[in-house]
């Protein structure tokens, strides 16, 4: 019973640590209007933290990410649309700041990868299908007799 409780507590602790908590832990950072704050969070979650590079600015505790979050909220309060905020960031940090790369000449291959993968898989399946020979013909009467003789079956 005791061991069970310790195990459960441990599991709870580990799963709590694994929760992807947003880094905005400081309530003073958040906008008063929940609608605007929700928009800021959705824009922020699409912006790359440029220091950590694989986190969004909403997830990161880096100093620059904190300032970028503040900047996003500034723009949104000033009346910018989500797209305008995004464009404002891209004008300064390039497309790298987007966590979801846009479709353009240099990213065509990236976006086409799923289709290309499917195509390659389909080709492999098509060509390997032909390699399977037809199933062997059923045994003739003479062969069946020989088989019985060898296995001693009735």
């Amino acid at each position, binding site marked *: 019973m005791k061991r069970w409780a310790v195990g459960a507590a441990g599991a709870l602790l580990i799963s709590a640590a694994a929760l992807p908590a947003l880094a905005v832990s400081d309530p003073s950072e958040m906008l008063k209007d929940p609608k605007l704050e929700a928009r800021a969070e959705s824009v922020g979650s699409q912006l790359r933290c440029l*220091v950590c590079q694989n986190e969004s600015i909403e997830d990161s505790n880096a100093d*620059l990410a904190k*300032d970028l979050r503040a900047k996003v909220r500034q723009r949104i309060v000033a009346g910018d649309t989500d797209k305008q905020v995004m464009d404002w960031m891209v*004008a*300064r*940090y*390039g497309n790298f700041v987007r966590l979801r790369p846009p479709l353009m000449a240099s990213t065509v291959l990236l976006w086409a990868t799923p289709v290309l993968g499917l195509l390659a898989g389909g080709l492999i399946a098509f060509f390997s299908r032909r390699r399977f020979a037809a199933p062997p013909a059923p045994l003739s009467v003479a062969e069946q007799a020989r088989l019985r003789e060898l296995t001693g079956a009735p």
Partner: protein
Amino acid sequence: MSFSRRHALMLAPLGLAGAAGFAFWKMLDRMSVGKFDPHALNNPLVGKPVPDFALSPIGPGKGFTAADLRAAAAQKPVLVNFWASYCIPCAGEADILGSLAGEGLPIWGVAWKDKAGPAQQFLDRYGNPYARLGNDVSGNVIIDWGVYGVPESFLVDRNGIIRWHLAGPLTDDSVSQDLRPALKAIA
């Protein structure tokens, strides 16, 4: 299956692997001679006018604005250097900045969220190459410039256009291979 088609099918993956290998080798080759840097952060402001900003005073610096920078650059191109007293690579590039300033290149410093005391200590210890110096107290100005972190340097030409940018410390190589040609091009 005909002879030629069978061969083509067998050779296709080999050809693909060969092409990929060649491209990879070419990339490594370009990296080794400094023509390609996968970690380079290309600032989209290169080729664009300097953004509007205003900096607070810090230590020996009185701060400056975008208008000050544009007016000075109209006389002579300016190297804008983002740094901080707590930044170790900034100490590493201090000698290079010092010798560039000694050659007569105006260098304007932007401290990132720094404090007067430590900034003064840094300048006393590593030398002060800055013709003008200001502090980005809020961290807003560096975002306007698309700066990732310190150190970063920008070259501003006579028309107030950013002509060259480096994210990271200046090195002898980056000065001789990139900054000097850029300076020559706008001289």
